């Protein structure tokens, strides 16, 4: 007998197909087995295996094809949002990936490689641990008595250092005393949790990061990465208990700074911002929006920029379309991932936006790749890249 997680939920599924209509992977492949409803139906057959299957000449069992279907998911959570009977689908998909690995299936090669790198170097890029804070060229900015700790995340640390630099520039402008974990900052574990490889996160990464933060005695932690934020907000408490610090996504912290007038935005001081005089739109990263319910803060920050012309795409906030990069999907299925991103870029084009502004480095990378794929001139930038021009 196969024990399937959340088995009762499988029976609760109405098979209404509302999830089918919003699934970005299904929109690409079109196969029923690729959409949430189809996967739940297949699982129900697995949960319900019995002699009747032999009579009917079929033997539904978890196989490689089903494993692939589970991994062909961006963890965007759009299915969660529309579920008729409120099944926590986004969580279920992660649990099921873990369950498949427990059944003896191997993770996808790309995901296995990520795990190996994280176990060896504490980051998914395999970069040296001692270069973790190389992006921070001026260490004198760090405070020995910080108000906040900036958790840079692996991508800002090793791939897009300019994001981290923009963050510290903004914090400095607001006179916020901050520090970083440096070599003590390890991968938050998001790439492993989203691909069913939970062991290293539970045993190693989450306890280490939590201890490193708590040892510093800070009251607040900010991160500019939607993936790190979602993981620390929604996954860490179940692993390491209630945090002793307040966690903010950078956009939330900036919103606070602006509202309290600690951060005053100026009217294009260098008189050369490419973001003025054109329309810009905001893309909700799935992990920040649907998963962590941060919708208003980034919009408030953008609305505080004098002269910025912010327009919404038709699908925004809870119903925002995914960029295609999440859940380990881009690392395993890059081509389709970029096709999904291209569709999102087209939505920005349709509302006349020249820039997509987002709050997640993965969204940024993939949306730019999507734009390149279709020859679009729309450019995606991070919210801090925009904000740093107005301080």
């Amino acid at each position: 007998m196969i024990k399937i997680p959340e088995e009762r939920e499988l029976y609760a599924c109405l098979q209404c197909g509302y999830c089918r209509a919003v699934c970005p992977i299904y929109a690409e492949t079109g196969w029923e087995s690729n959409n949430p409803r189809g996967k739940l139906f297949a699982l129900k057959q697995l949960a319900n295996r019995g002699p009747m299957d032999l009579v009917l000449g079929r033997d539904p069992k978890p196989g490689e094809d089903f494993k692939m279907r589970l991994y062909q998911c961006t963890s965007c959570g759009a299915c969660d949002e529309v579920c008729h009977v409120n099944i926590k689908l986004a969580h279920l998909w992660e649990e099921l990936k873990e369950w498949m690995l427990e059944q003896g299936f191997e993770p996808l090669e790309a995901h296995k490689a990520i795990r190996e790198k994280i176990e060896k170097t504490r980051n998914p890029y395999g970069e040296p641990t001692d270069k973790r804070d190389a992006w921070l060229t001026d260490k004198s900015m760090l405070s020995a008595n910080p108000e906040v700790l900036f958790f840079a995340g692996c991508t800002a640390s090793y791939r897009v250092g300019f994001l981290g630099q923009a963050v510290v520039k903004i914090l400095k402008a607001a006179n916020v005393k901050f520090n970083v974990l440096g070599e003590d900052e390890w991968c938050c574990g998001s790439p492993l949790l989203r691909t069913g490889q939970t062991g290293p996160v539970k045993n190693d990464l989450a306890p280490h990061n939590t201890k490193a933060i708590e040892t510093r005695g800070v009251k607040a932690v900010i991160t500019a990465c939607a993936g790190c934020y979602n993981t620390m907000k929604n996954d860490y408490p179940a692993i390491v208990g209630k945090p002793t610090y307040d966690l903010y996504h950078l956009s939330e912290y900036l919103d606070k700074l602006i509202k309290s007038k600690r951060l005053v935005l100026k009217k294009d001081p260098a008189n050369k911002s490419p973001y003025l005089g054109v329309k810009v739109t905001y893309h909700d990263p799935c992990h920040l929006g649907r998963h962590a319910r941060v919708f208003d803060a980034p919009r408030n920050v953008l609305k505080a920029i004098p002269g910025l012309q912010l327009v919404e795409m038709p699908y925004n906030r809870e119903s925002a379309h995914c960029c295609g990069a999440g859940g380990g999907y881009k690392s395993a299925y890059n081509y389709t991932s970029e096709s999904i991103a291209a569709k999102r870029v087209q939505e920005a084009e349709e509302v006349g936006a020249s820039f997509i502004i987002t709050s997640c480095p993965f969204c940024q990378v993939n949306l730019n790749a999507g734009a390149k794929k279709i020859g679009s001139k729309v450019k995606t930038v991070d919210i801090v890249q925009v904000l740093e021009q107005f301080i």
Partner: protein
Amino acid sequence: MIESEVARRSLIRAVRPDRYSESLLERLVTSHDLAPMPKVAALAFKMMPDAVIRPKEAEEVAEVIQIANSWDIPVTPRGGGSWGFGGAVPNNGGVLLDMTSMDKIISLDAERGIVRVQPGVVWLRLDEWLRRRGYFVPYYPSSAPGATIGGWISTGGVGVGSYKYGAARDNVRSLQVVLPSGRIIDTAHISDSKHPSQFDLTSFFIGSEGSLGIVTSIDLQVYPDPEAFFPASYSFANMDMAYNALAKISEARLKPYHVAFVDDNTFRFLRAMGREAPEVGGMINLVFEGQKAKVDEELKFFDALMTSIGGKRESDAVSHHEWMERSYELRTKKLGTGAVIGEALVPIGETAAVARETLQLVKKMKMSLAVNGYLIDRGTVAFLPYYLTDERRWIKSISSLSFVKKFLDISNAHGGRGVGLGLFMANNVRAMRDVNTVKLLRKIKYDIDPHGRVNGGKTVELKLRFGIRVGPRLFRAGMNALAILKRMYPRDKYDRPVPGGFPGGEHP
């Protein structure tokens, strides 16, 4: 699996290899619709197709049908798969045409207010697309977030907004259909699509449940996005008062856009699930749309009417919530893990009697039930009861299915009729139509599709695996036996108690 290698190769050539699948996984997940059929039902019906094909154009559908004809392979079209009567479920294997692959919005003729779509477009997506262009589609199934346009019009198409804007039949201007012979036809000429002066071929295919051909393109009437839109909910002390209110609304000189009702049991179920729900005896949800002045006038008029017959206007927040929940009427499925819907069109004056007898039936069958529905015209209520079930207990679950037949008998006795026939309720056609009409319907089917290959053995007759026909007497006897079996079991129990007890009976 398709037995002949030659047939398989031909079918793959008709589409493309990446739109053809014989994988067990794919065939398994397309072998059902909304109805929670127990596995044992597959002994009677070969519900799992031999191959799943995803066509993109009418020509591909035509070629698949021609090949199927050459090799005697049954063909079943499937839209969103969100109906509950098996219309999109194979009864004898064969090819399943997954029509959701035909999901293009082809054109909008702004001058005539007509949008041309492929059948796999989802209703909600079409509405969103139109609203960005200043139009809207005011009639749609309550399952609009998942249901396809082709699927709904094949089931006859009544739903949200039908009260003011009519059913599919009133709004479909033309269809492109691939006939069971493989020929492609257009049902109307552009100049006579709104007022057909000859034989109304478009209407002929609407509600035929895919048994007369496969719809591959649809011209729909659309309307300018309204200036104002306002929902207003009114609670009543009991459902008899609410049913009376439906009658009064239908007699009124003004006409709301949509008139729906929700019974007290629905709210009770919701509370049992831990959700907030008003503690009322029943709710009537009115929705107004159009020019602002007109909406204001209608609101004022119906406010006075509802209040005069015992209705209490609920807050705007409640009204808005009720409107937003129009596509989520089965949230309570989680309570029993299963829910099965009956659907009948009932004369408005008979609604209270049908409701009363349905609750008596439920009590006898030791089940739990809630009802919702809406007006589709001044004289007719779409009455939708659903019962909770637990499909993990398969004998109880399958015996409970007899409720749907018994409920349709009640509605028939009061001059109503079931909405769907499909596979599971096909024999009900005999209860709704006289014998000569049924004979004609069958003759039409077999004249168009001599071997009954396209969605055969449904709608006008009931056939099992290997084409074995089941007559209405045998069907009725089987359903009666199941109903007796259900009554022999103890009362249904659920994981969570329902405050105030279960409808029609004591707390389990």
